[in-house]
């Protein structure tokens, strides 16, 4: 009897441990943020005043409107680029298709804030495109403000819509489209009435990701906003100014941001619930060969979109090799910027790697255990864990960081130190990437394999280590790489938590941009891009379906 207990206990203990970790690192900080938003900063008593203030004062109300405005328009822009791109790639022979999706993926994983400041270098008040046109006597519109943010969001987030819609389009049976044509639909009608509705779930999922990320994005509005404030910059500023006291306004704004994300998600789920189409893929879609101006047009569009989206990255790399003297570009090429990062920011580089790698080690171990619990043990606890794995996607980094700081650090009381705090926040925020990839890998492994091992005398842990783990290694590696990419590029929560000894590359870049040190920022960004590129290449080599590994 006691032996039997032991067997059931191994995975029950793991489940319990995972739940405790999630409770402490995920639920507790969020609850803490929620609670603080009802606290009066002066008296410490309960109040609804923070929310009243957030919804009555123009400063906050504008932030609220601005956030929705750039979020909605950014998402719309991403759809306008992503959907046609997906359709063209899925239905026509496009020369360089692999190239297009590779570039889209690179855009997706490039550090989010690079886009913003690279556009400043192009279109800012001293940008080279601006200067070029100015020398011709033409004045170009400024990049600062809402339209700049929307442009960056559009070009940054369209790959989500593109990749998800493309996958869905490739799975729409050709018979549906044939039937529509047979019933007399023109190609455009057929697209609008048949194809589009069938891939709507994928489009809306892509769009909702864009929306949630736009709401949460801190770097872009912080760099490009110039007085145009969104909730994330307001929350950050509030947190900074309330430092010392209770950050009640910062958390109230945070809660509102989270509420927007969640409402959007719930709405999308609601709409989707009514539209589920079972698809039997018997008749694979075929790709048509276009000719003439249509063919040219489609190619120009496809390559144009990804090239423009890649432009910031190229500009950053290019800039990093320009000769500088302090913040001033002196013309010509050189390695001065790299010399400077070695001199000025070696700590940022080592910290970035140290923190990210430490977090990834934790993520890898937990991913393996959590995915086993989710896939193999169907009970309330594993359902709860599965659900909780979605939460980090929805909680903006600023919010999570404020939750962490207010929960684990107050005054002189500092539970794990800043380094520990950063590693833990990377861990919890990037854990879902690891879990998702490992889970899908594990789902393809028949449970009978583990049962066979147990039947042959291997205790549960042994069976897991000798049979399950070797078989999910590819999924584990892809998941770890994905979480590494996203951890090393993390800016918003680091910015709230870091201190002088724990600065990271993204923070250093952000500060350099604010100081106008574009050369330094570019060199550091190139280092980040290089790490990211190497990881992406590894994922390409390892993942079954390279496109869907990233979304």
């Amino acid at each position, binding site marked *: 009897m006691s032996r*039997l207990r032991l067997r059931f206990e191994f995975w029950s203990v793991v489940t319990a441990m995972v739940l405790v970790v999630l409770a402490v690192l995920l639920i507790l900080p969020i609850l803490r943020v929620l609670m603080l938003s009802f606290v009066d900063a002066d008296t410490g008593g309960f109040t609804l005043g923070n929310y009243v203030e957030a919804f009555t004062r123009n400063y906050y109300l504008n932030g609220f409107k601005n956030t929705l405005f750039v979020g909605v328009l950014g998402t719309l822009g991403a759809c306008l680029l992503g959907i046609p791109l997906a359709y063209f790639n899925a239905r026509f022979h496009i020369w360089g298709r692999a190239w297009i999706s590779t570039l889209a993926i690179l855009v997706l994983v490039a550090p989010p804030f690079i886009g913003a400041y690279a556009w400043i270098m192009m279109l800012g008040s001293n940008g080279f495109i601006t200067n070029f046109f100015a020398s011709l006597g033409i004045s170009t519109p400024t990049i600062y403000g809402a339209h700049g943010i929307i442009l960056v969001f559009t070009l940054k987030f369209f790959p989500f819509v593109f990749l998800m819609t493309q996958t869905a389009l490739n799975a729409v049976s050709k018979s549906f489209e044939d039937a529509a044509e047979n019933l007399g639909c023109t190609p455009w009608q057929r697209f609008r009435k048949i194809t589009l509705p069938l891939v709507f779930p994928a489009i809306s999922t892509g769009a909702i990701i864009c929306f949630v990320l736009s709401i949460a994005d801190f770097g872009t509005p912080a760099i490009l906003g110039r007085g145009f404030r969104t909730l994330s910059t307001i929350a950050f500023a509030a947190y900074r100014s309330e430092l010392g006291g209770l950050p009640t306004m910062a958390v109230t704004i945070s809660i509102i941001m989270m509420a927007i994300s969640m409402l959007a998600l719930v709405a999308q789920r609601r709409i989707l619930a009514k539209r589920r189409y079972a698809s039997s893929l018997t008749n694979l879609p075929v790709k048509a060969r276009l000719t003439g101006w249509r063919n040219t047009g489609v190619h120009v569009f496809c390559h144009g979109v990804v090239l423009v989206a890649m432009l910031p990255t190229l500009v950053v790399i290019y800039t990093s090799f320009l000769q500088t003297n302090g913040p001033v570009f002196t013309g010509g090429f050189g390695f001065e910027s790299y010399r400077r990062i070695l001199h000025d920011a070696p700590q940022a580089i080592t910290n970035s790697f140290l923190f990210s790698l430490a977090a990834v080690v934790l993520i890898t171990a937990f991913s393996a255990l959590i995915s086993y619990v989710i896939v193999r043990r169907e009970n309330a606890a594993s359902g709860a864990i599965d659900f909780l794995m979605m939460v980090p996607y929805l909680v903006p980094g600023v919010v999570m960081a404020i939750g962490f700081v207010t929960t684990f650090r107050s005054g002189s009381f500092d539970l794990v130190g800043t380094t520990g705090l950063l590693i833990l926040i990377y861990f919890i925020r990037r854990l879902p990437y690891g879990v998702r990839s490992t889970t899908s890998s594990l789902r393809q492994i*028949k449970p009978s394999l583990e049962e066979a091992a147990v039947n042959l005398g291997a205790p549960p842990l042994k069976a897991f280590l000798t049979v399950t783990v070797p078989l999910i290694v590819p999924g584990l590696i892809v998941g770890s790489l994905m979480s590494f990419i996203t951890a090393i590029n993390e800016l918003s929560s680091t910015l709230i938590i870091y201190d002088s000894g724990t600065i990271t590359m993204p923070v250093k870049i952000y500060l350099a941009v604010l100081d106008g040190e574009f050369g330094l920022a570019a060199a550091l960004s190139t280092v980040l891009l290089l790490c990211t590129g190497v990881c992406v290449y590894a994922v390409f080599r390892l993942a079954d379906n390279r496109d869907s590994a990233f979304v």
Partner: protein
Amino acid sequence: MASVEISALRKLYGDVVALSDINISIPSGSFYTLLGPSGCGKTTLLRTIAGFHRQNSGTIGVEGAPIEDLPAYRRDVGMVFQDYAIFPHLSVRDNVSFGLKQRKVPAGEIARRVGEVLEVVQLGAFADRMPHELSGGQQQRVGLARAIVIEPKVLLMDEPLSNLDAKLRVDLRAELRRIQRELGITTIYVTHDQEEALAMSDIVCVMYKGVIQQASTPLEIYMEPTNRFVAAFVGANNFLAVSRDGTAASLAAGGADVSQALASLAAGIEVVCAIRPETLHVSTGHTAAEPQDIAVPARLREVSFIGREMEVFGTTKAGDEVKAVARPDPQVVALAPGSAITFRAARKDLLFFESGETGGRVA
């Protein structure tokens, strides 16, 4: 080699009763088959014995020792899986030695035993292949080798042949039986293929809806089914309605007075008469019965000539559908649908059951 005793075993999934009050006793060294339609609980019973499911109540004894509370990895019952479950990342040799390594058998002995068992399953030349380099039948042999090399007390097999094509299935069937006999290993085998069950087993246990219907030798199962379900499942039987009026009883379709066979049965109990297709003879026209026979008049619905034999389908005037399998008779094969025919059978071949899905045998 060990005897297996299962008593009062009960297993629920939520409130679905998957196994209710299972009592079976398996003599040491025998080949025991669980046979039944899909969803009757065969896999559940097997997996409960293996320890992958926890029973709600009841006991499982192997050689007199209770094992029902042991964890699966300490039960020492080998299992061959329906989907083979060959570890894809390990070679044939490593798959087969997996269990021995768990048991900390010395390396030299592992090499020897793995070599031997691979010879037994005729895979000696494949030891260093990876699983994906093997055919389905070969993979299934690896599964078998892996299970028997640990010399388990009991061997469990859940439809091990169902993923193979018909020809291979028959070949492997004989081979499985040969190996089992050679090793004398007590085996519990699951199948829903009645031919397979009858051909291989010492004892066939027919299950239905989580309840054991009958456990006997293949011949007894076939010749003397104890209830209507077993008769229907194993023999593909014809069931003819019986009209009873006091002590008088006759087939509703006419042609036979069966009062004598049912004389001892209390009045008021509804009965059906079962006749196996191969015991029926078919003749053209309507003819009367000899005393030792019955003769049921019917209309021909369809006759199909399939070479060695013919299958004749008819409908009696009471509406019973009757199927006969008989030696081809040119006269019958030539008949047009709707023609009058007579189904004939010896009285000794008639079986009577109480009506209802699992009605018991009477008389």
